[in-house]
């Protein structure tokens, strides 16, 4: 039983990271019906940028005083989010916007090309080997305070939740409550009508890429601080996990993406623990195929992309 709970906790932290990336897929698909293949690689770029800052600029280690650590990590997250957001908006401008009126598969193919470009740029700069940092957080089991020793919750796992959950709430607030969020929802429903109603469609789409990129950057920082390792081709596998989450929850549906990510995090964790890590990818793809074939609207249905 302890083992199951432990696996569940690991799955939860996995799922929260997936959620940040999955939101990027679902936002973009909801608004322009594009599977942004390069999004996973953007997440990888985010983790690389974070790694460069943590190890290269700030030289953080577990010996750094806690207050400094917190401040610097907050700065690293902010900087990474800005950079990845800028990259994502640039990609949209260069590779996707000129293809807005092309047949639907043209932007998808362009996105696949972009994914390889990002991967190889990371490979070029960081090299093909795994890049890792030291664990910055104390390794004590937080549950030992309550006298529980058979299950462990680490600082790293709490950190994932501390960063992820506020971002998810902020996004939800932004899309539901603000003027720009309304413009996004309108564009997702019908870009032409939204345009006629005075929504700047191009700007709204760019904004969507900006938000998606920022979330991917945050996920990258969380990933490097949680797993302490990244590599240039991490984005492919991770991106497909996140995309599967988005599809599982109903692509275009923000809450669905988070729910799908949490489910997929558990699938990953339980498959790693009880089956074999070798099979995890095959299982994730199996889930993806099964959902697409049997219930393409996902578990919670499509909301943003009703016209899909």
């Amino acid at each position: 039983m302890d083992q199951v709970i432990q696996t569940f906790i690991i799955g939860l932290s996995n799922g929260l990271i997936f959620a940040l990336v999955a939101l990027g897929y679902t936002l973009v698909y909801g608004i322009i019906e594009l599977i942004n293949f390069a999004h996973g690689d953007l997440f990888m770029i985010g983790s690389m940028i974070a790694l460069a800052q943590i190890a290269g600029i700030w030289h953080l280690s577990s010996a750094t005083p806690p207050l400094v650590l917190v401040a610097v990590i907050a700065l690293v997250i902010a900087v990474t989010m800005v950079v990845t957001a800028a990259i994502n908006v640039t990609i949209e401008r260069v590779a996707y916007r000129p293809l807005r009126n092309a047949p639907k598969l043209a932007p998808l193919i362009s996105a696949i090309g972009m994914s390889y470009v990002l991967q190889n740029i990371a490979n070029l700069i960081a090299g093909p080997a795994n890049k890792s940092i030291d664990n910055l957080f104390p390794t004590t089991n937080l549950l030992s305070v309550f006298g529980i020793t058979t299950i462990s919750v680490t600082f790293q796992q709490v950190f994932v939740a501390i960063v992820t959950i506020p971002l998810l709430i902020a996004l939800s607030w932004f899309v539901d409550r603000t003027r720009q969020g309304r413009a996004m929802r309108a564009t997702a429903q019908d870009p032409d009508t939204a345009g006629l109603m005075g929504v700047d469609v191009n700007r709204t789409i760019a904004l969507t890429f900006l938000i998606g990129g920022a979330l991917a950057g945050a996920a990258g920082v969380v990933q490097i601080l949680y797993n302490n390792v990244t590599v240039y081709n991490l984005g492919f596998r991770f991106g497909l996990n996140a995309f599967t989450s988005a599809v599982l929850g109903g692509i275009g549906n923000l809450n669905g993406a988070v729910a799908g990510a949490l489910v997929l995090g558990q699938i990953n964790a339980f498959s790693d623990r009880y089956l074999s890590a070798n099979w995890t990818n095959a299982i994730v793809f199996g889930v993806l195929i099964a959902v697409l074939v049997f219930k393409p609207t996902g578990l919670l249905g499509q909301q943003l992309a009703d016209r899909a």
Partner: protein
Amino acid sequence: MTTMTVKDEDPYGHGVGGWLSHVGEVVFGIPDTYRRELKLHRRRTIALTVLVVLLVIYPILNKAFLAAFSRNVFPLPLPDDTVVTFMMIFGIMAIGLNIVAGFAGLLDLGYVAFYALGAYTAAFLASSHWDSISVVFLANVTPGFPGIHLPFWIIVPMALLVAATFGALLGAPTLRLRGDYLAIVTLGFGEIVPVVFRNLSDVTFNFSLGPITLAAQHLNLTGGSLGINPIDAPFLPFANITFDASSGYAPVYLGMFLLVIAILIARNLERSRIGRAWMAIREDELAAEMMGVNTVRTKLLAFALGASFAGVAGSLQASYLGATTSDFFTFSTSILVLIMVILGGIGNIWGVLLGAVALVYVDKTFLPYVGQELQQVAPGLPNPAQFNFLFFGLILVGMMRFRPEGFLPNRQRAAELAGAHTQAEIEAKVDEVVAVDAVAEVEAAIEADPSIALDNLGPPPGQAEASGDARAPETIDEEREL
């Protein structure tokens, strides 16, 4: 519909027999056709003849003297035997993917799965992998040698069948999916197949059903991450030729032989009833269905036939290299073939062939050569051969933006990608209709029901949904930028 019952006039009869007799006629008619072409287009025919002869004897030329001084004479390195053999293998693959993605318009991102299935079919049927049994049949192996050893000439049709079966199996559940979802499902399939081959190296099961009990302990089904080797090389019995990596240009001709068959089949398919049905589905699935095209059967055939080409290519690759591991079959390979198809000209057989030759050359000869030269000039610089996919990624992005129809475009497909239904064209068409019919009638109809005036401008909503990727850009979308 009554039109469906009309028999098309086919002097050769129907089915495989008719097809074979047609192919026979084409082959035996070559001398006559050639003489006629020579008379009509003298220059072009002579130029093409010289080109084909040069291509056919290229390996010999290369071996005999070009290779020796190519570095001094030519500005660029010439591909060697291995590279040319891979040009043939990828040529077959590109032609196969062109059937699925080019003719039928179904984007397949997991094409490598069928390549893997073909390679593993060869590995299972022509190696010592199953060493507890011994089946030697017409192979270049001493009888009693452990393992199953079948000749390459039997493996090729087997690989074809295996790949085609899996192509149809994959196709069946995905028929209802739209363009991009289909692409992702095929991608998933392409990732699962190598994982299965990699992981089934230690299988233990105990399965009993009534009196039948199946059990195995640590059964090595697929060789795991080491793969299976050695695999028997293709062998031509009477001429005593072995086609392996060390036998020079012989495998080039084996590849060329299979490639020519592939080209013949693909060209015949393109011009056949089924080929026209594929293109009809690509242009507009709903309209094709209305015209009596059986879309389910047609799409399944596209998947199965397209996959069979990759199966053949895979069996050739495994037999030629003498080894196979699951690492050969990554997503990148699927994308490589896709780039060949897009670069050359999606839908055009000669275009995709050109794409295959060009890309294999760049990947296996040009970039390593540049890398070598760079190392001499500036040893610190990264080797471009390791970053081949940086260039390929840029090619994909650039092609989609500037020349989506490829360098040797298929005419129909190019028109479609360029957006044949521009606003001006449609307005012209509407004007024409208005001029021919009575203007008053149209106006009266619009007055009675204002919505039909808008309907003239765009495709009906149902059609836009069903035709998926192949649809022409919607007219309204083009106004959005204004």
